[in-house]
Every structure is written in C-alpha cells, then in structure tokens.
C-alpha cells in the first residue's frame, strides 16, 4: 500500500459543499465532505445512488452541470487550490493533471472521429508533441491498455470496438498526458461482469506502473474491495465513514457501513437471507436533522436526531457517528446527557 499519511496529499478536499439552487429552495447534494488522496493511492468512494459520490467527482474536475455549484469548501491539488480557478486554467488541468473516466464507454467517445484522432488531439492539447510523435504516443498508449494490433486499430472508429475495448480506449484517453490523478466514475458499471474484472485489473496495473492515484467512484463493493487502498462511504451527501479498505469491509464502525456490508452476498458463506437496511436514503429536500442516517439506524440515540456528528476516530477507521464520541460516550448513553 502506498498510502502514507505523512506525505503531502495529492488531492485534498476540505469541507466541500455542492448546492443546486431550485425554485423551492437550495438542495445540498454534497455537504461538508473532506478527504485526501495520497500520490499513487486508490480511494474508493461508495454509496447508494444519489449519495453525492459522482457529484463530488464532478466538483473535483470542475465539471458540475449548472445550476449545480460549489458553495463552500476547497479542493487542493498538490497544495494548489483548484476549485476557484477560471474556466480556461481549470481546462488546462483537466486531462493534464487530473484524468477522468466515465461510466458508459459506448457514449464517451465521439462516434464521428477515429479513436486515433481523439487520442492525438488530447495528447497535443496537453503535450508539446508533433502530429507524428503524438500518433506514436497514441499507439503506445493503446498497446499499454491492451488493444491488439494497435497500429491498425488506431484508425478505427468507436463503433468498431466492443464495450470493453472502448473502455480501454477511454482509459488510454485519460492517461494521454500522464495525469497524477484519475477520477473514475463507475468505470465498470456498464460492462459485462467478465469484462469488469479485466478493466479493473488493467486500471490497477496502469496506476501502479504510472504511480497514478485514483478516485474510484462506484456502488460496487466488490470492485472497491478488489482495487482500493482506502474507502470513503457516502450517505445523503455526507461522509459516513472513511478508512483502510480491509477495516471498512471486515470491521465497519458506522451502522450504515455495517448495513451496507451485510447486504453484499458472499460466496461460501451460506446465510438464510441477506441483511437489509430498512427504509430508503432520504431525499435531498428532506434530510433529517442530526445524523442523516438516524431514522434508519438501529442504534440511534437522542443525540443523533439533534446534533450532526463529524468524522471521529472509530478503531482504525473514522466514522461520522456518535457511538464513537470522544471519551467513549456512545449515542445511547448520551440520551440522558442530552436530556440533562
């Protein structure tokens, strides 16, 4: 594991807040989220649909769809603040220092241009290479992501590739300028299961070889367990828990994370039924006060409905849960404290 907490983080997100102004008030889609990614580290971000994990990724690369906007907090890349940069300066960072991979490889590529053209234009946007040099680099990249016969395939169009091959091309595009960080938003969700494993293995290998850090956004815990060094669990726009992947998967602290892990089927272990979390994630218009998870939480105490917990140390991980309040005062015990 390359994660080292004493290094300068490659990416640091501090108290990020993403808002969507609507006619009926402002929706807070990402609320006070802080985390960091070390160079070469793979951070998995998991959560249900609508938990704000993709929006966090979009906010980092500066591509929130209007009217969504960063309403607070800051994003630092190698110590430099990037969330408030003008469009043109941020554009030069995208692709060059932060690459991106999107969910659906079938729609990520422009159908009217050959993949070679799309690679070359990306390379030439960020690197001072001649057309011939850029083409050579494009062929090398295609070879690296495992496209057979790259020299001839480079002139093919996206529709001439299968879904898995297209995602390889997308990964090559993200790697064009050798970025330090890749934000991968559900990179395997649209693929067949057999292809998913290949793409994950490829992504893992490339990032290890290039020393590229990855923010891997997904709802697939299997992918996270396979790939990530650390995991951040999001719920209703907030961080519920963050910690090393082993500890979060095997020994989760936050009741939500435990529920999430309990709902994953595992081979070999033959249990009657999977556990499930009762209820559904709240809508952004009706996030409960206190801890957003409290109405569904089996261990919620009174304090949980009143006061919002910050991330606090909970064993090896850090969890936003009053069960781990400093001094060992759990949520249930604080009921009296809140009454007093």
């Amino acid at each position, binding site marked *: 594991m390359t994660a080292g907490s004493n290094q300068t983080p490659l990416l640091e997100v501090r108290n990020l807040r993403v808002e969507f102004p609507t006619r009926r008030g402002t929706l807070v889609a990402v609320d006070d989220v802080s985390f960091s990614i070390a160079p070469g580290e793979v951070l998995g971000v998991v959560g249900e649909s609508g938990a704000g994990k993709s929006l966090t990724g979009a906010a980092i690369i500066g591509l929130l769809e209007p009217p969504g906007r960063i309403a607070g907090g800051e994003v630092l890349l190698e110590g430099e603040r990037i969330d408030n940069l003008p469009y043109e300066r941020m554009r030069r960072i995208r692709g060059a220092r932060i690459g991106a991979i*999107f969910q659906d490889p079938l729609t990520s590529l422009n159908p009217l241009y*050959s993949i070679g053209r799309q690679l070359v234009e990306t390379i030439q*946007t960020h690197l001072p290479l001649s057309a011939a040099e850029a083409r050579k680099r494009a062929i090398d990249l295609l070879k690296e992501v495992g496209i057979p016969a790259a020299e001839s395939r480079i002139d093919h169009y996206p529709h*001439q590739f299968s879904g898995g091959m297209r995602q390889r091309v997308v990964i090559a595009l993200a790697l064009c300028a050798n970025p330090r960080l890749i934000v991968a938003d559900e990179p395997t969700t649209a693929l067949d299961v057999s292809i998913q494993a290949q793409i994950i293995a490829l992504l893992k290998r490339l990032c290890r070889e290039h020393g590229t850090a990855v923010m891997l956004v997904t709802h697939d815990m299997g992918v996270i367990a396979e790939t990530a060094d650390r995991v951040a669990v999001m719920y209703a726009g907030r961080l519920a828990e963050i910690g090393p992947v082993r500890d979060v998967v095997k020994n989760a602290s936050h009741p939500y994370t435990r529920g999430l892990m309990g709902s994953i089927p595992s081979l070999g272990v033959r249990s009657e039924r999977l556990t499930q979390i009762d209820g559904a994630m709240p809508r952004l218009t009706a996030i409960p006060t206190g801890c957003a998870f409290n109405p569904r939480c089996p261990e919620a105490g009174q304090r949980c409905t009143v006061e919002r917990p910050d991330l606090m140390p909970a064993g090896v991980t850090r969890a936003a849960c009053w069960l781990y309040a400093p001094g060992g005062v759990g949520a249930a015990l604080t009921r009296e404290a809140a009454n007093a």
Partner: protein
Amino acid sequence: MLAFVLRRLAQSVAVLLTVGVVAFFMFRYVGDPINAMVGQDTSLQERDELRQKLGLNDPAPIQFLRFIGNAAQGKFGLSYRTSEPVGRMILERMPATLELSFCAAMFSLLVGVPMGVYTGLYPRHWSSKLLQAVSLIGVSLPTFLVGILLILVFAVFLRLLPSFGRGETVDIGWWSTNFLTTKGLLALIMPSITLGLFQLTLIMRLVRSEMLEVMRTDFIKFARARGLSNRAINFGHALKNTLVPVITIAGLQLGAIIAFAVVTETVFAWPGMGQLFIQSVQFADIPVMAAYLMLIAFLFVVINVIVDLLYFLVDPRLRSQGGAARVSGH
C-alpha cells in the same frame, strides 16, 4: 457503398419516370395541342394529317416512351407561346435562377449555421432569446411580403438597391452571370435575402436544437474532461455531430429554394425560370410547364443523391459494411 450508389440511382430514375408520367398526362388532358397549334380555319383533314405527323394517333405507351426519350435528350418540343424550342428557353433563364438560388442558399447557410451554433451554445443569453424571437418572425412572414418590405425600405426610401431585374450581366458562353459587375451584385442582394430568409431561420432553429441535444451527450462531457479547448469541442465535436440532420434539411431546402424562386422572381421581376413558368401558366404553355416540372424533379433528385453521399463522408458508421449492426453490440 457502390451497391448503395447504384440503388439510389435506380430510385432516382424511378422518381424521374413518375414525374415524366405526370408531365406526359398534362399534354394529353390539358386541352388538345393541335387546337393550340393551328388556326380556326384549318380543315379536319389537315388536323388529322398533323396529328398523324406528330404521332398523336399512336398508342399512349408509345407516345410516352417517345416523350421520355426526347426529354432525356433535353428536347421538350416548341413553346406554344413563342414557338421557340423549350430547352433553349429554359437554358437561357437557368443562370438567373441558379445564381439567385445559390446566393440565397449561401446566405441562409453562412448566417443560419453560426446563429444556430450561438443560440445553441448560450441558450439562456438574452441575445439568443432575441434571435429566437426574430427567427419566429422570419418563419412566419410570407416571402412576397418580405420582398415588398425590402423594396420599400432599400429601393424606395433609401434608394440604395435596385428594385427589379438583374442589373448588368456578363455572358460567359451561354451562361449570363451577375457576379462580374457591381450592378449585378447589388441587384442580387435583396432577392437573395428574400428567397433565403425562410431557410435561414429554419436552419438556425434546426442547428440550435441539434446543438442543445449534442451538448448534453456524454462524449461532449468527456471531451471537456479531456481538457480540450472550447473551440475544439464546440466546432470540432459538437457541430460535426449536428451535420447529418442539417445536411438533410439544407439539401431539401436547396431544392425548395430553386423551385419556389417563382414568388421571389415575380416580386423582383427577376428574369429566371420561375418567371418563365408563371408566364407559361398564364398562356397554358404546356411544353414549358412540362419541361420545368421535369427539370425541378431532376434537380431535387440530384440534390438528394448528393445528400446521401455526404452522409457517408460525415458518418463513419455508415461507411463500414454492416456497421449499423455493430453500433449497439459488444
């Protein structure tokens, strides 16, 4: 690809034959051509001889084949009105109409496409909303009214532009052109705007809605994530993806511009084919009308074949054999 071209050509021939049938029946059922050709005092016998000589007693299919055969060689007989060969009459008028149509089409494309791109990229900007509103007027105003208003302002009040005719023309072989004299160019301005205005607004609105659609696609979002410049995204990636529908409509509209130049040519007394057609209708000059019909059908067919071939140039998915089947597959 070759099979496709051959199939399209066969379809074109079928279309032209169908139009030929319509044109042919105009001869047979819109009055008796002998009556139009001879005087009142011609005897019945002489009329029969003429009928025989012109082949009008032959069975209809034979006559039709003869008509089509002649039409294919550009022979449409003599005008009832002027007794000149119809082919030559139309050829004389053709440069005026084609030059006018060309200018109108260029005007509508060169102004309409950028306006569409702009309003598509900045749909919420006030100037886009203004252009949208103005374009609604352009779509709903009838052509003749636009022409008359332009004449009123620029010819009557401001006295800047000529109100009728082609101005000075220069002959290059049989082709007479407006493009080589200042007066000729000035004379082109108002008719071109009048003729092209409707198409301009149509193309603008089409490009706008296509741009709005394309800008929402994943590959544009991914192009942004790759850090491409706005110019490369807007014009390289987005605009090219709007081209297939735009080419289709622009092609059809080019045919419409040529065919419906009739109104504009009448308003501006433009000595083109449209004006000739109007005069022929007034005199029931069937050979001219039939020839005009065939010519317009021919132009439409040619434009459509060109449009189909342009699709291949724009969209690689059509180029590869069986490409369409693999678009959705893994």
